[in-house]
């Protein structure tokens, strides 16, 4: 696995997003729900005057999790949105051996200290937030 990853925690599970797709990390603020949006979309919030969608990452992955403390602002092409997570653990490289992960929102998984870390497929997650059904 080349490049650095932002590692986050949801409940007892760990996930990682490539720093190439991470714009910034913000603390959790007032989120305005958007009725009619796709499941897993928390709503929109004000990021320095810009209106940005916030996604409940735990709900997207179907993982039990505590209340979010941070929003990781990610981008994929033209799209960007915030992923709400319980905790941001660290930023650093991941080990090389990638296993397939059988989840549409994960592009694979690696083992860190014998714990699996899911690698987030940002395109798939943002697509689902737009209401697209992933393959």
């Amino acid at each position: 696995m080349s490049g650095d990853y932002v590692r986050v925690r949801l409940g007892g599970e760990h996930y990682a997003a490539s720093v190439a797709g991470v714009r910034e990390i913000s603390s959790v603020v007032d989120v305005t729900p958007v009725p009619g949006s796709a499941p897993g979309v928390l709503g929109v919030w004000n990021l320095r005057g810009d209106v940005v969608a916030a996604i409940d990452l735990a709900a997207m992955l179907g993982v039990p999790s505590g209340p979010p403390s941070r929003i990781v602002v990610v981008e994929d092409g033209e799209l960007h949105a915030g992923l709400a997570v319980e905790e941001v653990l660290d930023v650093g490289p991941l080990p090389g051996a990638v296993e397939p992960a059988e989840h549409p929102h994960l592009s694979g998984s690696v083992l860190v200290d014998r714990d699996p870390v899911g690698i987030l497929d940002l395109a798939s997650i943002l697509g689902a937030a737009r209401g697209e059904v992933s393959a």
Partner: protein
Amino acid sequence: MTEIDRETLEIARDEAADCLQRIEANLLALEGDGEQTELIDAIFRDAHSVKGAAAMVGWSDAAAIGREIEDELEQARANGSIAAERIGPLLKATDDLRRAVEKEFAAPVPQEPEAPPAASGNGGPAPQEAQHDPQRSLRVDPGKVDRMLDAVGETVLHHRRLEHIVGERIAGDDLAGGEMDRGERLLEELQEAVIGMRTLPLSSVTAAFPRAVRDMATAEGKQAELAIIGGETQLDRAILSGIADPVVHLLRNAVAHGIEPPEDRERTGKPARGRLELRAEQRGGLVAVEVADDGRGVSPELLARAAEHGSLADVLATAGMSTAVEVGELAGRGVGLDAVKTHVESLGGSVEVRSEPGAGTTVTLLLPVTLAVINVLLCERDGQPYGLPVPAVQEIVSVDRAASLAAQPRFVHRGEALPLSDLAALLGASAPELAARPPAVVLASATRAVVVACDRVLGDRELVVKSLGGVLAGVAGYLGAGVLEDGRVALILDPNRLLELPAAGASEVAAAEPEARPAPRVLVVDDQFSVRQLQRSILEAAGYQVDTAKHGREALQKILTGPELDLVLTDMQMPEMDGLELLRAIRDDEQHESLPVAIVTSKASEDDRRRGAEGGADAYIVKQEFNQQALLETIERLVGR
């Protein structure tokens, strides 16, 4: 040959480029396993638009290629699919069309030799190149203006946040307060100036229209003239370039379907030459652009269907419906109004159609003046603020008595039983039940009105419209979002969508018992009509009976001779008799000396406050856009409700 100005051609070229780009993308998507019929419809509409615009500005090669693509897609539309081997040739035709547009756009515009040069005051004829003099006009990339407008919008919001934060602390400091006010005025001026940079008169896109209408009519063996009224009306550049194409559709439809052949017209006693009018005027916060003809109008059957199914615009816009048989170069094939409606709604506007069989048809496009800043009424439901565009808001009411019809909640307003909904249910949000007698907003278009109940009406604000962003762009029902001065995001609702949705979720309101106690009576005194109306709305929504007066003298008259009042809410500065004089007069009258009086004013001046208190005012309320809840609480306390 009439000169078609360069700007019109540029707009036509840019629009064609947009359409062609979409056609290409959709053709490529057809090769995938996507839903075919929607893609075919979309390509058909775009080809139709390019063809129509090209025909309008006289690009005959481009119009011919556009028509070929349109014809093939029309066939595909009828079949519901398109053969895979046709995609290649169609992509090639798209390239040909793009080249034809560029070539014809680049060709010199034929100039009428005897065209009078533009007059320039008393200095005699101006040289032709005067309009390109860089000292007189400056070409700026619209993107730069947009960035500037965005920055100015943010600065205005920042100033409001600042005022919110320091307003309390500097209360009584006239110097600081004065500077804050001055800052606000300067920013408003700046914002207006930048918005002005984005607006252009309607006439900047209409120069080619009269000639085009004449040519279209001639091609159909008809006679028609076009009069343009209100061409000086200003519209946002983005809206203007967005409506040029719909207006062309409407003119084409009017000539093809509206205007009768000269013989028919003479038989029914009309002049042989049909008359089309393109009218534009400002209506409140909106601009109305109308295309009217004196032709045959729609059939009585269609009118009857419209009466049953809602509006005539909806009936006519039902995709695929055609009212004419011929398919000439200029005949709108029924896609016209569908495309127009979709387009105008995407700009935050709406379409209305009136027609009288035998006498003509008028299509009205109601458009916002600018896309950048929008005036909204903020309503709160379940703690969330929602903005409703002010032009769509007819009134604020209190749902004190709800009825029901066919098991649907109704609110009787001005003699009409309107559908009553809970804002949350309408949007599909879960929320706690509404309180008894909730405030509600009457939303209205020319053909429909609905009543939408919420928890609180917070008042009106000017918001810089932000897009919900790519991730949420597909969610229907929102014009965008705005950032409030406390940093929260308010969704801006699309009133057209709320008017279309079936009523939802106010059945509990319908069951609420009206209160037996008579509503307290409040007299609102202010010299400004808008302030009186706003305060009346807020108070009536909260269940008060409200009377108004323009100044102290009128107020005193009503206090002394009218029905008994529970409270007077008065402005300070007014002609005839000001707030303090009114207060003194009330305190001097034996019968009314204990009548509660609250002074409302925009100045947080300590001096005013002291004089008000000395004069015997019961409360002193500073006008601020955001403290309407405080206003209601103060009033409740004073009338002892």
